């Protein structure tokens, strides 16, 4: 119970986004939403500002909510282990996604919004083994965001059974894509933190998320999809250990 009270207190004190983070998030959401809704500015080849603005607004809601879920879960996890997470946008990734969407006429949308850093909360880390900031902790914080994104997609897929809506469909598609892009081991994306944190964790999370992305895109039930993904993840994780990691440590 004491841990829960402690976490609730840390959330109350440190969860708030800084003005710079809010500004960066707004820019990232606006650009990513534009990329996501690029092909929806009218019917076919006919441009329509009204339809485009409506779809762009919907895309802003989807992207904003997805980013908030992703970052919030990472932040709560990091507070739980005594760090304060700070999110920063990646202008290079955002500009690249804009260029790619213009070059491919909206066929390829890159979701490269930014990455995070952590600040050490000295008092809250007291008693922890590995007191300072370490790669393993960073990897864990990063992977919680990716898992949160895929579970968010699964939640809405489950809700979609009761409420059929194109907005929900788009949200599921966006979150699956966002989870996949988060896996790329390219700094400052989350995948790089996980990769450098632990190759074993990266092997499991990548296998799990890839399987979940494929299964959630198909027409099978959400529970079965998640359970199957977990088993696929575990099997590939073990295979990775046997065929690569075990041999690599042998030297």
């Amino acid at each position, binding site marked *: 119970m004491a841990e829960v009270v402690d976490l609730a207190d840390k959330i109350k004190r440190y969860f708030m986004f800084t003005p710079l983070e809010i500004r960066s998030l707004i820019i990232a959401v606006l650009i990513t939403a534009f990329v996501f809704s690029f092909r929806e500015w009218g019917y076919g080849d006919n441009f329509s500002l009204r339809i485009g603005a409506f779809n762009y607004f919907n895309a802003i809601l989807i992207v904003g909510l997805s980013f908030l879920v992703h970052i919030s879960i990472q932040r709560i996890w990091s507070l739980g282990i005594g760090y304060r997470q700070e999110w920063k946008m*990646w202008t*290079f990734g955002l500009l690249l996604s804009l*260029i790619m969407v*213009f070059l491919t006429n909206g066929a390829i949308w890159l979701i490269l919004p930014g990455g995070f850093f952590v600040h050490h909360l000295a008092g809250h880390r007291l008693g922890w083994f590995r007191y300072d900031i370490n790669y393993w902790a960073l990897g864990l914080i990063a992977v919680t965001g990716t898992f949160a994104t895929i579970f968010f997609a699964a939640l809405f897929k489950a809700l979609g059974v009761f409420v059929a809506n194109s907005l929900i469909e788009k949200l599921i598609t966006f979150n699956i894509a966002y989870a996949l892009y988060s896996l790329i081991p390219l700094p400052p994306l989350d995948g790089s933190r996980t990769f450098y944190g632990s190759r074993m964790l990266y092997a499991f999370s990548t296998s799990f998320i890839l399987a979940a992305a494929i299964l959630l895109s198909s027409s099978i039930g959400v529970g079965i999809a998640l359970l199957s993904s977990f088993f696929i993840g575990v099997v590939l994780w073990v295979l990775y250990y046997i065929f690569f990691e075990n041999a690599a440590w042998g030297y």
Partner: protein
Amino acid sequence: MLRGGIKLSELLFKNWAEFVFFIIMVVGFAVSIWASSYSAAISYIVVFLSGMMGGRLLYERKHRLTFPYAIIVIGFLIGYLIGSYYGSKKVIVILFGLGVLFSYQLRKKGYIRDVFF
């Protein structure tokens, strides 16, 4: 080992800026061909965004070695100009320059701040 007893790695290490300049020029050429296949407007938008990327790079190197990076950024523009067959070359140069300045000033004035490595 190359002719004259020079190692390839040594050559790359000493002349990295020229190599990157050439690669980026080829990238600029390819992007330009791709962008101009749609219309001149898309080509202008892409060159402005590319200029913004260049501005970010130059700002990152503000208090360090800047010249090779400036050469690399110019390499992209040269490649882009060679590849553009729609639209005015003057407008492309102006938009690229504006993109660099806009991005650089946004960072200098502190309006945006992002991750650097």
